């Protein structure tokens, strides 16, 4: 398994001899074959051999070849222009720039494939190159490979590489960094070397956000540069500090160069390398592709770094200070306005700079220039030049650190070069001659040991550099899995890339939509067929059980004993009313319950009439109540021989429901002026001297409806005063009337045949309907109880069985 090649795209293992990943079809082997002699390591100081890479062009993609052809033309034109203006364009130090070989790529690639900073380096209007960071920038680009950004035409990385198309700085209004570079390209402004990689084209998107802010800071910077070359801090201080960069930063000194002073004591530990470059969300997709696969990329730091990078876009780059000693949150403040710096530069600066104050340095560039110009080699040599963070993903060891720990001489010389020393634009055909390579570039070439280590780590890494200063070198730059991961643009397929969670949610949505459109059977109970036989059985047994005692007139069952309090209250009212006192009786029950109500009410009226001979005044809010009164008087109370207009008066029907009761309670004389026979009621004997409800001795409501009882209770609440109020109700209404007795709004309650039977026992042994019905009633109740219990349990079992069967069926 150790020989397996891990796909940089999908991380799947593939056989070593496979050229493409069998899972995602990503190229596993280098695109070009190793050149002759490429395997031989290059010794330090050895001049590189010019290689003709034109033979490899046929295998390039068509788009790349087209881009290369167009770039060659542009480069030729640019070269001619440079030759015509040698004083302005040709750098004094070297005719071949460090990244001269990239020019061919620049010419070959599409417009967006070249970062601006790179175009500035190789272009006509290139800027002075900044020390060691640019070397990393170059290296970084080359590590990316030729087609790293080829597919990133639509993402942020394409714009990053826009400068590769032409050596001329593009007058892109959005690319403020290039304007800044153009300003630097002006000898008057760029009085000191400047890092060539500090372009936003090389920066990820997060740095290109600096556009707006850059406009402001750029003008300030330009002004500062033009005046003294120093930003906010005095130039003298900067120079002074720059001369002694290893000194610890002075607290009271300007923040803009404190970070510069801190560059010397910076540690070189690899862990201190900020990985914000590769871990930030705004990093172009080419990098995020690698980062997505490296989960160990310090998430905790990335958050803070993201913030930092956001602030970077808004602040001046002078705040670029050492970040490794600061928490990420503090770093973010410090890295404001890094807009002019490339990520590589920022990285190196962060590594080398001690903690500093917040950025307020519009003249950061001046200080940087000062530091760069006077940076002692030994101080720079202490800087930990580590590979980019994306290399950490696959390079667990620090082997690569040694490659960059030494500052090449050429870098310093580049820094010391006058601003006018612009690199010459070279094409691929004009490959850099080995003897033209600067010494520091040669010193950057991999040492044997390093390469061997790399080779041991990545045996399959035999990529031959096809262009640039490293042209012809094989395996110099680790293009292992990590690099490939890092540099290879993320494959953007036309397929929608969704996560598992999104898929699950989409599936849920589909289910919901399907459920909405699909016909849903209405859940309904299965029709429980009426059992006619059961109905007949019940009718038969009930009729038999009731008819027998009624027919035989049995009195086997004893009447209930133990008078409850509500019945006792009614009993006390019946016995306590004065002799011949007027009693108002409301007859509000339906003819259907005439048997029950007469059986319930008769005992109380019988006893009351027998004991007190009250004058009864009947009124009814029920249509049939008036006629039921006559039936009651002529039926159960017939023995008392009460005469209408003398012992009792029937006021008849009171319409209006609650309104009628309220009106009657408020003013009974006006509301019911006539009796049943339309005679004047209030002049009659039963109502003599009565003009209001409270003048009655008692109020008795005989009703089968709890609503009627409630209405009488409610509407007479204030009118009846303290007169006793008894309700004789049907058994069905008693449960809802009981609370009114409990609240003492009524004085007594007699309910149903049960209450009548109770009351009847206190009638001096006078027989009544309750006694006549009681045996049949008791049998009927017991029969019902038995049938409900037995039948209920039986049907419960049947129902459970049916439900279980239905469940099993389903």
């Amino acid at each position: 398994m150790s020989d397996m090649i891990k796909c940089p795209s999908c991380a799947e293992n593939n056989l070593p001899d496979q050229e493409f990943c069998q899972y995602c079809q990503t190229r596993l082997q280098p695109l070009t074959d190793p050149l002759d002699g490429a395997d031989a390591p290059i010794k330090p100081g050895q001049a590189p051999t010019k290689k003709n890479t034109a033979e490899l062009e046929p295998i390039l993609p068509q788009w790349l070849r087209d881009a290369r052809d167009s770039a060659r033309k542009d480069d030729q034109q640019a070269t001619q222009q440079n030759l015509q203006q040698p004083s302005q364009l040709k750098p004094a130090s070297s005719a071949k720039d460090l990244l001269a070989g990239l020019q061919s790529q620049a010419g070959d690639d599409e417009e967006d494939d070249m970062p601006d900073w790179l175009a500035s380096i190789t272009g006509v209007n290139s800027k002075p190159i900044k020390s060691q960071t640019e070397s990393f920038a170059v290296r970084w680009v080359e590590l990316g490979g030729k087609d790293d950004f080829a597919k990133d035409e639509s993402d942020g990385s394409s714009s990053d590489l826009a400068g590769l198309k032409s050596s001329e700085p593009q007058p892109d209004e959005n690319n403020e960094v290039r304007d800044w570079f153009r300003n630097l390209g002006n000898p008057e402004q760029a009085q000191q070397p400047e890092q060539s990689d500090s372009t936003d084209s090389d920066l990820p998107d997060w740095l290109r956000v600096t556009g707006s802010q850059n406009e402001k800071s750029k003008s300030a910077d330009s002004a500062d540069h033009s005046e003294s070359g120093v930003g906010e801090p005095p130039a003298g201080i900067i120079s002074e500090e720059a001369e002694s960069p290893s000194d610890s930063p002075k607290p009271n000194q300007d923040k803009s160069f404190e970070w510069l002073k801190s560059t010397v004591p910076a540690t070189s530990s690899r862990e201190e390398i900020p990985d914000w470059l590769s871990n930030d969300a705004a990093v172009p997709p080419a990098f995020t592709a690698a980062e997505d696969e490296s989960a160990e990329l310090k998430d905790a730091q990335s958050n803070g770094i993201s913030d930092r990078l956001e602030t970077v876009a808004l602040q001046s780059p002078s705040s670029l200070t050492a970040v490794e000693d600061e928490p990420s949150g503090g770093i973010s403040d410090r890295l404001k306005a890094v807009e002019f710096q490339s990520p590589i530069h920022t990285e190196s600066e962060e590594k080398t700079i001690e903690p500093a104050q917040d950025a307020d340095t519009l003249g950061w560039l001046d200080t940087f220039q000062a530091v760069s110009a006077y940076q002692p080699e030994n101080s720079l040599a202490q800087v930990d030049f580590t590979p980019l963070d994306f290399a950490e993903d696959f390079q667990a060891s620090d082997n690569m650190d040694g490659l960059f720990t030494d500052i090449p001489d050429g870098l310093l010389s580049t820094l010391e070069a006058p601003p006018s020393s612009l690199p010459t634009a070279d094409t691929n055909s004009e490959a850099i001659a080995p003897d033209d390579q600067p010494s520091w570039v040669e010193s950057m070439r991999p040492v044997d040991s390093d390469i061997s280590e790399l080779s041991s780590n990545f045996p399959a890494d035999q990529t031959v550099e096809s262009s640039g200063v490293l042209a012809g070198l094989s395996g110099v730059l680790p293009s292992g899995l990590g690099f490939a991961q890092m540099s290879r643009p993320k494959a953007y397929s036309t397929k929608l890339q969704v996560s598992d969670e999104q898929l699950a949610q989409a599936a849920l949505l589909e289910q919901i939509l399907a459920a909405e459109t699909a016909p849903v059977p209405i859940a309904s109970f299965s029709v429980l067929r009426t059992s006619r036989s059961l109905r007949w059985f019940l009718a038969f047994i009930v009729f038999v059980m009731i008819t027998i005692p009624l027919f035989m007139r049995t009195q086997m069952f004893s009447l209930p004993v133990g008078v409850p309090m509500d019945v006792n209250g009614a009993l006390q009212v019946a016995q306590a009313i004065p002799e011949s006192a007027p009693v108002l009786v409301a007859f509000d029950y339906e003819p259907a319950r005439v048997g029950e109500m007469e059986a319930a009410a008769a005992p109380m009226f019988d006893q009351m009439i027998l004991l007190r001979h009250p004058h009864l005044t009947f009124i009814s809010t029920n249509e049939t109540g008036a006629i039921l009164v006559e039936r009651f008087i002529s039926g159960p109370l017939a023995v008392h021989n009460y005469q209408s207009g003398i012992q009792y008066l029937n006021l008849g029907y009171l319409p209006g429901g609650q309104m009628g009761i309220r009106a009657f309670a408020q003013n009974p004389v006006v509301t019911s002026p006539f009796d049943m026979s339309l005679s004047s009621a209030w002049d009659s004997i039963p109502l003599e001297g009565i003009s209001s409800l409270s003048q009655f001795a008692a109020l008795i409501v005989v009703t089968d409806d709890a609503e009627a009882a409630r209405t009488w209770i409610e509407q007479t609440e204030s009118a009846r005063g303290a007169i006793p109020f008894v309700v004789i109700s049907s058994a069905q209404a008693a449960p809802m009337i009981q609370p009114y007795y409990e609240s003492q709004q009524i004085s007594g309650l007699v309910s149903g045949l049960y209450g009548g039977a109770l009351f009847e026992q206190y009638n001096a042994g006078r027989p009544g309907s309750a006694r006549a019905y009681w045996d049949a009633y008791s049998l009927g109740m017991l029969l019902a109880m038995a049938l409900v219990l037995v039948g209920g349990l039986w049907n419960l079992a049947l129902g459970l069985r049916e439900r279980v069967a239905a469940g099993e069926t389903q």
Partner: protein
Amino acid sequence: MVFSSDLVTGLLSFLFTILIFSYLIGDNPLFRIAVYIFVGVSSGYLAALTWWQVIVPRLIYPLVYGSVLEKAFTAIPLLGAVLILMKISPRLAGLARIAMAFLVGAGAAVIIAGALSGTLLPQIAATINAFDLSAASARNISVVEVVFNGAFILAGTVFTLIYFHFGASPKADGSIRRLRLIEISASVGRIFIGITLGTIFAGVYAAALTALIERISALINFIGNY
């Protein structure tokens, strides 16, 4: 052959009782005949009763025999009565809204005052007074019994009221439910409501059984008498 009123009454009663009881066998024309006649007779009796108990004494008498002031005051309900009678005509039914609005407004006021002063406040006070020890001692009820019964009454009242609280809020899963505490209280309230409805059912059955007993007794008496 002379038919006494009692005989006619008993005969009609027997006949209609049998016709109605025939429903126990199943729905049949005899049952329908009895029901339709019963509805017609009841409506006719109601109409006659309304005429003689409402229209004549409250509307016609004041207009005929009343004073000027009484006539004036009676003219307004007369106008309202005419408007209500407009409901018979579909074209003029809209005019009845005026009288109906008066009826509805008057009814609303009556039920508001009645519910407030007759049920709401007294019942709430009674729930509180269920723990009144002095009132209990006056009724010769022990303290333990008062507290025990009062607690049940209070719990039944509160939980039943909570059961009728249907306010709910949407949950995270999209379902709309009541609060957990409300749900638990409503479950307890459901038990009390079940007991109350069971009590009412027993009362309805007792009333129906008494009616059945009265009818069978009437049948037996009619058969026995004639």
